[in-house]
């Protein structure tokens, strides 16, 4: 069986059918390149013999074409030898050339899109003179390469620039845009929609016969790139602005090229718009190649493609348990968290009982759901009505009676949690699951209040729960596999990504983020300029700095938690937590009255008519004689290394079991730099030995908390990556 079949009909139309042997989805790799070269040279022969009236490209599979072969991309070394580089470059050109031949054969070419046509798959479509898609679910076209640190490399940039102009090309390609059938038609990515596969074939052939002279606009005489090219004699303000401020924005938005794709795309769009088509193809190939071998692309492919797929396919779900579903969900506590979870479940079609201590509180929680609906432009009024109808606010435990699962989202106070556990269990069925949304309290301890600890589990949602994509599921000592499966399936039903971890204080995410918050505090106490700390976090790729993060949560909340932890420790006869984060919070609240953003200011001041800026008191109190100078690279590394090191300890202790859970959890839950691929992939990319050396160096200068744990040293010895 061959990848590409050519079938000619009575009208001289040749169908070019893409059907990769042994795969359910066509991909663009070595096999494709060879097959397409051969197919196109046959078409050339037919065309020069005058034996052909048109070419109809379609898929022999249920879907059209999946894109590049990502597993082979992972194998490409980051440092190519000259020979490897030459070979790679040639194979990129080899993928492009047949498409160029195809569109310049002198006979019309049409493509029929019966499913997803993404990346390389859509680049094939772009070489056709006419694109017909079936208007049905699953049909989606797009060039999402940038989302995995790549860019189109088979003529996608060259053609999109010539079809839509530079500005749209930059916007769409850097965002890695995908469009469903109707949107694709509206945007001009496809030319025609039909209702069925049969209609697609008929339309395609009819179009070929009606358009014997079809030619790409860019091969017509006098062609001009829409909205102008950067080397035109006169260029518009918009185009000048795109290439003057655009590059600045790329650098700022990617925090100095943490994500290399937007930079390559911006420059490539400019470069390919200045030259003829064939030269443009070479230029695109060079940029594509630079990304193909980049470390960031590997990080993103590994984590956001392979590992995320693994998680969503259930690597951490217990085996052998039938799929479960929660029909009715109970939520205790109608605060922002409870209400956010309620919205997410109701949106997924689950009945929700939203309980609080008073009807008024519960109603307020439902009001929050209403607000969320209103703010979300993608939810229509009728959809909002349906969603809200599924949320029943109540003050009564009895309404929880037939819930399959109840999530407790009350205050982080052991006594209150114990009390609601007992009260809930009296109301619900004996086989119903009770999940605590605690972010840090050990599940095994909380389960002591439960009469059915096998049905007790942790489901840690992140705030705001209606937006944040992660759920951290925590198994207590006695939690059953069944309970885990139910929690896992519920998270999936709510379109969240579930990671599964074991019980320990702070579980996985909280303990990891805690380290960077603490490191930020340590550096403040050392007298380091807070602006450097915050900028270091930003340049690392963290969405917020460790100081701004506390301002948002509020120092007061952190203070209360600190005092609670201390009281707990004292009650249990444990040593009192003296970490720098605690010390700094206590000072901020008790001495300086800086209680957080909502209380008028914390580490930052928030002037009414201006940008927030670091509170001048920071210098006055923590660096009165001038800031402590340490290398900026050290500040940056301290903020990331502390997290990866803590993740290693969690791995060593069995709190987290897979690199996938750790990577995805750290990015989706606590904002670890996405381009790094997560806490574990960060170590792989750095190089295990190099990471251990750097950790030791940091330990020497800044404290033993940076000493590499044994698991790292062992893995470094055998160079066994964390995958």
């Amino acid at each position, binding site marked *: 069986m061959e990848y590409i079949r050519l079938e000619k009909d009575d009208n001289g139309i040749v169908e070019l059918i893409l059907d990769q042997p042994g795969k359910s989805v066509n991909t663009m790799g070595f096999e494709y390149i060879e097959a397409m070269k051969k197919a196109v040279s046959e078409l050339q022969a037919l065309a020069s013999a005058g034996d052909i009236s048109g070419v109809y490209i379609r898929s022999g599979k249920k879907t059209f074409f999946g894109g590049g072969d990502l597993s082979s991309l992972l194998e490409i070394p980051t440092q190519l030898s000259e020979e490897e580089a030459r070979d790679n470059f040639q194979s990129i050109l080899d993928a492009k050339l047949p498409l160029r031949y195809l569109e310049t054969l002198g006979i019309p070419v049409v493509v029929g899109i019966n499913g997803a046509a993404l990346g390389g798959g859509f680049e094939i479509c772009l070489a056709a003179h006419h694109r017909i898609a079936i208007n049905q679910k699953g049909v989606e076209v797009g060039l999402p390469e940038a989302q995995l640190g790549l860019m189109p490399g088979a003529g996608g940039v060259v053609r999109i620039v010539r079809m839509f102009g530079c500005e749209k090309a930059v916007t769409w390609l850097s965002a890695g845009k995908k469009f469903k059938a109707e949107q694709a038609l509206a945007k001009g990515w496809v030319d025609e929609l039909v209702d069925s596969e049969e209609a697609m074939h008929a339309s395609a052939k009819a179009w070929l016969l009606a358009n014997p002279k079809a030619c790409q606009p860019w091969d017509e005489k006098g062609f001009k790139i829409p909205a102008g090219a950067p080397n035109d004699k006169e260029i518009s303000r918009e185009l000048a602005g795109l290439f003057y401020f655009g*590059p*600045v924005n790329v650098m700022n938005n990617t925090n100095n090229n943490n994500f290399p794709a937007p930079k390559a795309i911006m420059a490539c769009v400019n470069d390919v718009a200045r030259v003829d088509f064939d030269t443009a193809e070479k230029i695109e190939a060079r940029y594509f190649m630079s990304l193909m071998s980049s470390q960031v692309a590997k990080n993103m492919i590994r984590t956001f493609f392979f590992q995320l797929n693994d998680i969503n396919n259930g690597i951490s779900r217990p085996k052998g348990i039938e799929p479960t579903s929660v029909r009715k969900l109970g939520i205790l506590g109608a605060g922002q968290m409870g209400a956010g979870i309620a919205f997410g479940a109701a949106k997924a079609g689950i009945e929700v009982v939203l309980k609080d201590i008073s009807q008024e509180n519960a109603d307020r929680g439902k009001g929050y759901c209403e607000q969320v609906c209103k703010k979300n432009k993608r939810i229509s009024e009728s959809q909002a009505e349906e969603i809200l109808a599924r949320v029943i606010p109540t003050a009564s435990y009895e309404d929880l009676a037939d819930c399959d699962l109840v999530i407790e989202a009350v205050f982080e106070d052991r006594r209150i949690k114990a009390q609601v556990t007992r009260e809930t269990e009296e109301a619900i069925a004996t086989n119903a699951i009770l999940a605590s949304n605690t972010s840090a309290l050990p599940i095994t301890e909380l389960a002591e209040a439960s009469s059915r600890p096998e049905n007790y589990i942790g489901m840690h949602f992140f705030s705001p729960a209606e937006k944040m994509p992660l759920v951290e599921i925590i198994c207590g000592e006695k939690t059953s596999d069944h309970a885990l499966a139910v929690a896992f399936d519920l998270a999936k039903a709510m379109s969240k990504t579930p990671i599964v971890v074991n019980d320990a204080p702070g579980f996985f995410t909280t303990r990891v983020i805690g380290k960077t918050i603490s490191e930020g505090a340590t550096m403040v106490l050392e007298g380091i300029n807070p602006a450097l700390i915050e900028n270091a976090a930003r340049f690392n790729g963290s969405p917020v700095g460790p100081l701004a993060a506390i301002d948002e949560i509020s120092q007061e909340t952190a203070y209360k938690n600190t005092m609670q932890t201390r009281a707990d420790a004292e009650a249990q006869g444990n040593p009192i937590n003296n970490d720098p984060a605690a010390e700094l919070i206590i000072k901020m609240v008790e001495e300086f009255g800086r209680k957080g953003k909502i209380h008028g200011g914390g580490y930052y001041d928030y002037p009414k008519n201006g940008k927030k800026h670091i509170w001048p008191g920071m210098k006055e109190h923590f660096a009165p004689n001038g800031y402590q100078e340490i290398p900026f690279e050290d500040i940056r590394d301290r903020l990331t290394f502390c997290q990866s090191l803590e993740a290693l300890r969690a791995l060593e202790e069995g709190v987290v079991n897979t690199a996938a859970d750790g990577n995805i959890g750290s990015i989706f839950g606590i904002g670890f730099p996405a381009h790094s691929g997560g806490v574990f992939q960060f170590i792989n990319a750095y190089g295990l030995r190099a990471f251990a050396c750097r950790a030791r160096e940091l330990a020497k200068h800044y404290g033993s908390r940076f000493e590499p744990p044994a698991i790292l040293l062992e893995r470094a010895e055998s160079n066994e990556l964390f995958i």
Partner: protein
Amino acid sequence: MTTEAYIYDAIRTPRGRGKAGAPSKPAGSLYEVKPIDLVTNLLESMKERNQLDTRQVDDLILATGEPVNEQGQNIAKTALVYSSWDDITTGAQLHRYCAGGLDAVNLAAMKIRSGFEEMVVAGGVESMSRLGIGASGAAAGDPWTAMESYGISQGVAADLTARQEGFSRSDLDQYALMSQQRAAHARKNGYFDRSIIPVKDMNGLTILDHDETIRGDITTESLAKLPSSFQMFGDLGHGDLLKFKYPEVEVLDYIHTAGNSSGIVDGASLVLVGSEAAGAAQNLTPRARIVACATTGTEPTIMLAGPEPATEKVLTKAGLKLDDIDLFELNEAFAAVVLRYQKALNIPDEKINVNGGAIAMGHPIGATGAMLVGTLLDELERRDLKRGLVTLCAGGGIGIATIIERL
């Protein structure tokens, strides 16, 4: 022994407001004048007032910041061909951003001191009203190059300089006020008269005979009212971009305005440089010798820090110390540039830009450096002092400096 490079003459046009005309918006006085005429006016004047046998002049080097269109494709030789100068004199065009005019003088000095040439004219020309800033495009405007280079608006770089040095808006405005007052005083008392050559039309009618933008009546209050000139660039991304180079920056205050930054003007300048023998052959009296010159590069994002290291470099070359310099001319690109230089080298107000500078009179990019040579020499003569130093900051972090010494 090395041949000395002597300055025999230094002339310039007055500086006209660099505004193009538009309905209900009056143009600057030199807007109607083609850049080539700014040059030929000076060439004819230089020839006439020195009774110059132009066959003895080897070369004309002209700097311009926009070598395109009317200023394009070697305006130096084009101006020579069009003027009454002999065909034997050649010409070349030079671009070193704001440092071009002084670099032309330095190159002339190098030609003479090497003994390869005998007499060279150096200067610059800029019609900012007719060409506009950016008319010739920019290599740095290529997106990939830009993203690799961290370039920001020069004005934002000036604001960053002020922040790094702790200069306030009122520090900058105070300096600007002094520049205006000094320039007004100098103009009123005829200190510029020896060098200024009025721009005339084809009928011999004077179009402009004085620097057009000096505002002797300006006050601290009126300066304080001016809006920031570069905030727009900061808000559109430059304010964040610079943090990759200067991570200690949190919020930048945009405090440079049209009042405390150099003005946009039109003008041209020429300096006649030659060996002792070449001057003597034409009965010319040397006014000064060019002692040493230097260029150097500094961090390109902040870009304006070149004058200090260039000064240190040129002093070392000359075997001199700061105290050996009687007067300094540092181009007033932005007030913060001068204040930073004064602070770093401990130079008192009394020794620097004593007749004002570009904040009052404007900065015709390619022409400025050679203008400053003339301004400095005139003032050294007027005060009967010996040595002066000219320096400028320029794009890409370039610094340039030249020491001249009266004979």
